[in-house]
């Protein structure tokens, strides 16, 4: 992973980072590029354009060596293919990009903005004609977690300034930036949100549980921003490497059943559907692009992982170093698991769009997923659960409505601390547990039956 160095010049000048490995093991060039290899005796020309000198070496799935231009367009191509083939963004959408300041979400932001810029140019070119496509809207969200990860206020202010600068400097049209503290998951009525949040986190004793709980709260917070500001999609920067770690983490935590829900391109179990356009991009590639294009990264909160998650990421890192295709293989294995019906962008969204956009949308590969919807979702992590013990859960048995993984690593063992924990929960989690997602699920089932019926006719 020599390419990952964040220090300045990066790979463009380095030239040799993955060279050795590449030449030693020609088998790693997979089908896509094998034929190119055979025709190409010159080891230093770009695999794609075959004319420029290759300066970037990715050991990954493409087994590739590229010139800067082709590397960029290749990576953007993966993003774009994911977006179009999964109907992630339609012209009438307003998408919210979750930006942590890190490399992956930085690239997600860059690509979404490029895509919007191109759409805008098309729009401008055809504006006076009939049937022009509207341009989708883009907003950016940064979740301020300083209440959980203490940070000097000066540092935080600087980071937020940097983020503002990044968003301001993106290609037009201008994008709204939402900087929201994570305590906002508590309703505005509760003015001690900060205290409640800290108490909640502190009740969790398991280091891994604490970290995972924070991840769930972050998602709730993003959803809240999206709902309140009328966004229709939430874009996350999760890349292949990140997802590979999640696959192993979920397996180790006993979440084999729900795993398939988390790793698809689209996840519409949330009120605002979540999409992962960087699912096929490796961390290594993302880092190279950030260096290449001098994309500014803002390291705000120390995101070194603890416990099980930390162990897994170092394990995956070593595996990836031994075999640059490993992360892809892991994600591909998990990709073969049967997804859930909500792992696609709901039809309704497309129906609402005007005809022109419908006609122009490239959609393939969007077969309805024919599997039964899960009966219940964990109120904490929103994981689908295979069996539902209690149809009408009461307050005092909140724990029973949670998945076994959250029960173990997040819920307190002692009944007394359990009551406390419950009292610190944000309203949305409590109502999720109370309603058991019933109404929502029924809607989903109907949805599903309808579209199945239509397909058969």
């Amino acid at each position: 992973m020599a390419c990952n160095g964040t220090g300045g010049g990066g790979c463009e000048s380095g030239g040799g980072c993955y060279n050795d490995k590449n030449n030693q093991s020609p088998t790693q060039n997979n089908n896509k590029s094998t034929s190119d290899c055979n025709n190409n005796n010159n080891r230093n020309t770009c695999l794609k354009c075959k004319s420029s000198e290759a300066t970037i070496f990715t050991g990954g799935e493409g087994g590739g060596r590229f010139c800067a231009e082709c590397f960029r367009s290749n990576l953007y191509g993966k993003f774009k293919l994911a977006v179009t083939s999964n109907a992630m963004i339609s012209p009438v959408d307003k998408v919210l990009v979750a930006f942590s300041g890190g490399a992956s979400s930085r690239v997600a932001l860059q690509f979404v903005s490029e895509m919007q810029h191109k759409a805008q140019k098309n729009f401008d070119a055809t504006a006076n004609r009939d049937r022009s496509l509207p341009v989708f809207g883009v907003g950016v969200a940064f979740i301020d977690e300083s209440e959980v990860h203490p940070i000097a206020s000066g540092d935080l202010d600087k980071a937020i300034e940097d983020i503002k600068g990044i968003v301001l400097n993106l290609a037009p049209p201008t994008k709204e930036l939402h900087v929201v503290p994570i305590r906002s998951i508590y309703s505005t009525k509760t003015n001690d949100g900060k205290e409640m949040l800290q108490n909640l986190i502190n009740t969790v004793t398991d280091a891994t549980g604490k970290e995972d709980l924070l991840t769930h709260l972050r998602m709730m917070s993003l959803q809240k921003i999206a709902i309140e500001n009328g966004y229709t999609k939430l874009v996350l920067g999760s890349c292949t490497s990140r997802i590979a770690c999640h696959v192993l983490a979920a397996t180790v935590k006993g979440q084999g059943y729900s795993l398939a829900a988390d790793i698809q391109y689209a996840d519409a179990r949330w009120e605002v559907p979540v999409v992962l356009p960087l699912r096929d991009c490796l961390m290594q590639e993302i880092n190279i692009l950030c260096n290449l294009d001098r994309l500014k990264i803002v390291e705000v909160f120390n995101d070194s992982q603890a416990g099980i998650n930390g162990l897994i990421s170092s394990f995956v890192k070593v595996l990836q170093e031994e075999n640059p295709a490993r992360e892809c293989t892991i994600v591909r294995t998990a990709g073969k698991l049967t997804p859930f019906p909500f792992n696609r962008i709901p039809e309704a969204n497309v129906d609402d769009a005007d005809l022109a956009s419908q006609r122009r949308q490239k959609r393939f590969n969007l077969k309805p997923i024919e599997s039964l919807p899960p009966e219940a979702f964990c109120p904490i992590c929103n994981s689908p659960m295979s069996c539902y013990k209690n149809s009408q859960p009461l307050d005092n048995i909140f724990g029973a409505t949670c998945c076994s993984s959250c029960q173990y690593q997040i819920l307190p063992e002692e009944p007394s601390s359990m009551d406390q924990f419950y009292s610190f929960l944000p309203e949305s989690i409590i109502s999720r547990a109370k309603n058991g997602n019933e109404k929502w699920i029924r809607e989903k089932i109907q949805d599903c039956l309808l579209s199945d019926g239509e397909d058969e006719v």
Partner: protein
Amino acid sequence: MEGGGGGEKRTMKMCCICNQRRPALKRPKTLQQICRECFYEVFEEEIHRVIIDNNLFKRGERIAIGASGGKDSTVLAYVMSELNRRHNYGLDLFLLSVDEGITGYRDDSLETVKRNEIQYGLPLKVVSYKDLYGWTMDEIVKMIGLKNNCTFCGVFRRQALDRGAALLKVDKLVTGHNADDIAETVLLNILRGDIARLSRCTSIITGEDGPIPRCKPFKYTYEKEIVMYAYFKKLDYFSTECIYSPNAYRGFAREFIKDLERMRPRAILDIIKSGEDFRIATSTKMPEQGTCQRCGYISSQKWCKACVLLEGLNRGLPKLGIGRTRGVNSEPKKDDSQIGAKNIQSKPCGSLDF
């Protein structure tokens, strides 16, 4: 699942199960402090529950215990004969060993199995590679070296166990695969993208469509507890690694499992649970079962794997049959050289071999 347990009143350090004797150990699976007697009891009782809940055996069945002389199979033989007597399963138990022909390893461990035969009063049958295939592992390694030798050994052992079981006329074969082994296999199958094996590897009974079904009563039993049980019971077992694959058993994935266990003992059970719960479409087609045209053993191809490998050995082409489909059963594809290089072995040699 096992929520409370330790959460009761805290008297002065007594076994947290019987509350009468001083604790002698911290149970690896739950970290409960318990006495030796209670450990034996929970250890054996858990295995009994697994046997009953999964209907592993029927009264009157003849069962072969795959016995290598190592800790897992020794404890398995001991516990099986103990439970069979105590709970009156009505099973006829046998020990079945494979002699791979590895001097300094198998000859010594076979001595252990022979002692077990007397200690537990279980009849022993030994089948040897030399008799079945005409080659010992010593001879094979002399010819092919230390690369891929585990492939030969694994393929030959599988068939040898089936043939031995057929000679004993048993209905089932039990093996000492423990929870750590299964968790490791789940991970390895994810790492190498083998969805078909991933869906099968957590089944407690396998090969029900084959000649002799195999089952794993230790599916939920931690390796550490097996070692502990053998240690406290002073069972006579052989604990040397195979001389041809030193460290094979301490592969990279294995180390990872151990790290996880240290941080969270329940991780091993959780991995197995994940393996059982994965949503895998059942449509994954299994190759059609036929019989080998040469030896009559079950095979999906013209020749069974063992015959392909043997043919290679006998013709002096030991690469035959190594790696993916090539050689006798299909047209040769590409060049041989790289295959096997990025092979991740699982049991018997659980190493990540890049």
